[in-house]
Each structure stands twice: as structure tokens, then as C-alpha cells.
């Protein structure tokens, strides 16, 4: 970019609206185009949460566009490839998977995906802190996502919290699930402990996020430590319920 782009009116309006909310809650992901999720590579919590947030952001729309899942080699080796029968029901037939060898190639594919108007959203999985993924690369992704309106969830496997320009930065790991209705001894619907440690427009906070039972169910949040107890999320009528 030769000259810095001024903030678009939409972003300013969004930030104003967000100032009034001040606290993140499910259903607000619309306002953010670039999120980073730090997760352990020994569990699928990062990709699971990214998909849940993507579903949460596009729950109302009947979007039939494809979506992109980019993985670099280390991410594939550590966490495996996406498995179509296990993906959420509304998403599994629209997946396009990119198997990149290096982090550079993965970043290139992510950026090309963000510039594509026919993609609903983009999910990236990059393991560790590669040299190619510095602040500049992160900023490029943010700009491309903002410019073309394609949301990006970048999952960082086993990575340290380095510099990044993502609007929302999460740290997540799996949380024990609620016992399902019919078999209390079985694992239930996915749940994650998510910490929002850096956000442009929201206050940081920690939640237990649960996916409602059933495929592609709504995302529910339980506050672990609320900054403002009077705005208890469970009492807020704006929260979606399953």
C-alpha cells in the first residue's frame, strides 16, 4: 500500500456501537474481520472454536459460498487434516482445503483467499511462530480482510503470543463438556475455555463457550470472570439461546 487508507465510516460506526457494548458476546463476530486463536496442537480446540465462531457469525444468512481452510505442513502433521464427516453439517460440502508446505505459502494462500469475493470465510492453521508471520504479514492479512469483507480466523498452534494486528486475539483450550441428555457417561457437545486477551473494541475477558447440542448449534457463553457484573451475560436478553 502506497498510502494509508483512512478508516472507513463503517468501521467508525462499528467501533461506536461496540463502545456501548464494551463486552464481547456471541453474535458480535460480524464486527471483526481478522481474529487470531492461540491453541494447543494436541487438541482440535483452535479449529473447533474458529468454526464455531464462523458459524456464529453467519448463522442467520443462508450462505452457500465455499470456504477455505489453509494448513501448513507442521499444522497438518501435528493436528491432521479436516475430516468431512466430522465437520458441521452446513459447512462440510463447501470446504476447499489448501495444503501448503511452508508458512510463506500458507500466508500467500490466505491472502489470495481473502481477496476472493466467492468465499464465505477463511480459516488458517499455522504451527509455531514462523519468521514469515511477523507483524507486517499479519497487517497485510488484516487489510485484505477489511478491504474485501472476508472474515479470517487464524489458528496458531503451539505459538507464543507474538506481535499481531488481529482485531480479536483469543487463547483457547478445551473445557469439560456438559453431559449429554441420553448418555451421561459420554462426551457432550464441544466446549472451550476462551480468553479474549486483546481486542480493539471489546474489553478482555474469559468465558466458557459452549456449542449447543446438535450439529452447528448456536454458541453460548458463560462468563468465568466478568469485568462488569451488572451486565451479566446470562441475563442479557440480546443473547441468543439454543
Amino acid at each position, binding site marked *: 500500500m502506497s498510502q494509508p487508507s483512512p478508516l472507513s465510516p463503517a468501521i467508525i460506526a462499528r467501533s461506536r456501537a461496540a463502545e456501548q457494548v464494551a463486552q464481547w458476546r456471541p453474535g458480535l463476530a460480524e464486527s471483526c474481520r481478522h481474529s487470531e486463536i492461540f491453541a494447543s496442537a*494436541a*487438541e*482440535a*480446540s483452535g*479449529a*473447533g*472454536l474458529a*468454526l*464455531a465462531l464462523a458459524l456464529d457469525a453467519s448463522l442467520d444468512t443462508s450462505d452457500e459460498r*465455499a470456504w477455505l481452510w489453509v494448513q501448513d505442513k507442521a499444522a*497438518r*502433521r501435528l*493436528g*491432521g*487434516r*479436516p*475430516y*468431512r*464427516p*466430522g*465437520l458441521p453439517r452446513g459447512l*462440510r*460440502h463447501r*470446504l*476447499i*482445503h*489448501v*495444503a*501448503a*508446505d511452508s508458512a510463506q*505459502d500458507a500466508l*500467500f*494462500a490466505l491472502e*489470495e*483467499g481473502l*481477496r*476472493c*469475493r*466467492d*468465499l464465505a470465510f477463511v480459516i488458517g492453521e499455522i504451527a509455531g511462530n514462523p519468521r514469515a508471520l511477523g507483524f507486517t504479514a499479519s497487517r497485510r492479512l488484516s487489510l485484505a480482510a477489511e478491504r*474485501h469483507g*472476508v472474515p479470517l480466523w487464524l489458528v496458531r498452534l503451539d505459538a507464543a503470543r507474538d506481535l499481531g494486528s488481529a482485531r480479536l486475539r483469543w487463547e483457547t*483450550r*478445551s*473445557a*469439560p*463438556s456438559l*453431559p449429554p441428555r441420553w*448418555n451421561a*457417561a*459420554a*462426551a457432550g457437545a*464441544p*466446549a472451550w*475455555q476462551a480468553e479474549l486477551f486483546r481486542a480493539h473494541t471489546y474489553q478482555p475477558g474469559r468465558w466458557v463457550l459452549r*456449542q449447543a447440542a446438535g*450439529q452447528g448449534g448456536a454458541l453460548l457463553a458463560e462468563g468465568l470472570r466478568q469485568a462488569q457484573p451488572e451486565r451479566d451475560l446470562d441475563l442479557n436478553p440480546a443473547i441468543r439461546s439454543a
Partner: protein
Amino acid sequence: MPPRRILAIWLVRLALDRWRLAEGCDEGAGDDAAPLALIADTAHGPRLASVNRAGTAAGVRAGTMLADARALCPGLVVRPSDPVGDLAFLERLALWAQRWGRSSALDPPDGLVVDTSGVAHLFGGEAALLADAARTFAQRRLAVRMAIAPTAGAAWALAHHGPANAILGADEDAATRLAQLPVAALRLDDDVVLLLRRLGLKRLGDLAGIDRPALARRFRNRRSAAANPLIRLDQLLGIVPEPLLPVVAAEIPLVQRRLMEPIRHRELLDRVLADLAADLARVLEGRALGARQLELGAWKVDGEVIVRRLELAAASRDPAHIVRLFAARLDDIDAGFGIELVRLRVPWAEPLALDQADLEEPGSERGAEQHGTSLATCIDRIAVRLGEGAVRRPVLHASHIPERAQRWQSPLLPAPPAQDQLAFHARPLKLLDRAEPIAVLYATPDGLPRRFRWRGAVHEIARAEGPERIAPEWWRERGTARLRDYYRIEDDAGARYWIYRLGLAGDGRGGAPEWFLQGLCA
């Protein structure tokens, strides 16, 4: 709808006629006067592919080994045969033969089939058509035998084994007319012809004398038409349809630039490539086509050719897109003393209707920057940099084994029809490329591990669901393959995994059962 009339043309000595035309000598004159054979190299040495008239008179026959033939006829002259060239010649001849019919098909290695339905009156009748064809082939100095019949099978039989220029009328009884032809007229494989001869069935009429169920039982496991005389007989009589695959002339769109001064620099090559892409877009637009495969050839002054191929995810003729894709592939070109000719071909094109171009600066990089790229463009750009197999889409495959239930295919191909997964089969979000063995530290009495070690970390199982037993696919695997019992587990920290036990204790297919971790659940 006029009755179906098929003209079969058999080029009796195709390879020899081609050789003679290439040598420019008449039959029986020049090199052809002495015994001569065309040879093909086989695993056991050179073998005679075809023999000329003088060679046949000297007792040499096609199909014998060259060493044996030399023993019979020491003066035998040999030349290499050219089956690929013969086939290409036959293809051109098939197009040329469409002067006598609506469509034509190949009958390799040395035949043609022309559909002359409703055409004969233009030549003054079928006999006149055959005479015209015979005259024209004689002018080209190709020896042919021809026949016209209602079916391709009957026409082939008459052309190969019937009288010269035979015509089988639409209202004639094919069975009685063809009864005296040998069984080889059925276009059968050699071993089937040999079998029929050993059974004492030498003529087509002999087959009619046998009960049909008896023949059907004798050849019940012969599925292909060339191995089953009953199917061939039905095709010959027109009871079973035999579709012909018509030969259609296709012209490959091609643009090229001859350069007055050989170019040695990349900027000039980019300039030429942009011009070529614009030319190609015009050519393709005129034919309402889009390129799926592109081939760029650069001829160098010092006699070398550089070829770069690329394949597009969807048909396109956007010049900016083509230039951008090739730009990534031209970095390693060595121009040497210069490039004097650049050519862009489209070996594979698909129909692409006219569409609305971008209003401002059509096809430019700025347009893509403003409005985003299309999905096909995005996939092309990624695939050119990351390689062909990098961009894939998972599709279901009919298999019980989880790692085989998913296959990867090109992203814009339509998904093959498949049965959807059952909703009560809980599957993991991600599957490891190879299931990783886990060490069970402590197992409960019912066999499920209580505590296990995976990648150096100890996991305590808090909750589990299972087993879901998946038996080996005995029709695909060896008999010693072991079954798998899958469990969906959650450890004390909340991580959810998909693990399985390979085999049962005492199933006689190996030692103690092993445990593996295969999938990570969300």
C-alpha cells in the same frame, strides 16, 4: 428417419500402402518388387507386421518372427513399421471419408465405418456410392474392400469376408445372407474364434443351428462383446444397438508471434506474452470458448524449445489472469541467445459464454483489487504457486474404514453421488494422516484404557462413548486384517479424542490388541 445404412471400409494393406506412398513407388515396382516386410519390435525380438505381395509369394507370412522368415526367404528386405503413424493416418482418413456420410468412426487398426443413412441418393444409389468410393480410393492408391449393410457388424463381416463391394439391403434377411461367412466375421478375439472352431462351429449358419440357451450358458462369463459370440451375433442382426463413436475434427486455438529480433530479456517476454494473451482472448471469444489448459512454447535461436503448461480450475479467457499465472512460471527460463518465436496453444478448451467484463479497465489487476477475485481465479493463483495437488476438496467415498471414507478431488469438479453419513455416527473434526499408537498405562476391566500416554503427555479419561465396532473390509483387505473398536473420549482437561483398539484379545490375528489415536474432536 431413413433406415440405418452403414458403410464399412477395410484398408486391406494399410501399413504397406502407407509405406509405398511414402516411398513413391507403385505396387510391384521399385523396392516393392522384391520380398519386403514391415517389422515390429516385440519382447521376443522383431516380428513381421505386414508382408508385401512378393514376400507372400515367397512363403513369408505376417506374424512370424523375423529369424524364421529369414530362414524361409534369405533375401527378405525389412523396414520398420509405424503403428502410431498408421493410426494418425486412419484418423485423418476417417475425417476425409465423411464425404460419403454424416459421420464416421474408427475401426482400428485398419478399418473405417461411415454412417451413410439417407445419403446414397446423392450419389445415385448405393452401388454408385460404392463405385465412387472405390474409384477415389484407387486414386489415392489405397487397397480397400467395402460393404454397405444395415448394421456396422454386418457391414464389417461383408467387407472382410464377403464378396467385393457387397450391399445388404434393408429388407433382406441378414441371417440367411450371411450364413456362409466364417465365424471370424463376428469381430471376435482370436481365442474365441479358435474355441468356436474347436467346437466345430465354422460358419455363422452353424451358430443358428444351436439352441441359444446352450450358447449363452457356454459363454455366460464373457461380458465383453468381443469375447461373446451371442452379443456379436445380435449386433450383426441389429437386435442389440451398437453405438459408433464419431470422429469430430477439432481445431486447437493457437496464437503465435514471430519476433524480428530475438528477445533475451524478461520484460520483453512479458510484453509478448501480454500481446499473445490478448490475441488468444479474441480468438477464444469468437468461438465462445474458455481455456482449461494452456501451453506456452518459446523457440530459441539455438534450436531449443521451452514449454510451460498450466491448467485452470475453470474455463477462462481473461488475458490479465493468463499473464499473471504464466508470470510465476517464467522465472526460470533461460533465454540463451534469444527467443525468436512464442506460441500460446489451448489443448483443452470448454464452452464459455460471453459475460460482462469489469466496467473500469476490464480484466485489470485494479479491478480484482476493487471487487475481489472469483473463486476459479483464486484457486488458479494458489495452485500455480503451491502446485496442482495443493488445493483440494474432500468428498465422501463408499467405505466403512474412516480414513478411506474421505477422498480428495479437484475443488470445482462436481462431487460424486454418495450416501450421506449417518447422523448418529459422531466423527472427529480432524483426522491424523496416520493413526498414532498410544501407550495404555492403566485399563479398566471392560477393556477401555483409564490412563494413556500420547506424544509424551499422560491423559486421564474422564468420559467415553463406545465401542463403535468397524469390521475390516474383507473384500478389499487380507484375511488377517483386524477389526477396530472406536471410542470417543474426553480427558480430565476436556480434550476430546477419537481412539480405537485394533483387534480383540484372542482373535487369532496377532498378539495383544493395540491402541491408536486417530482423530481430534472439536
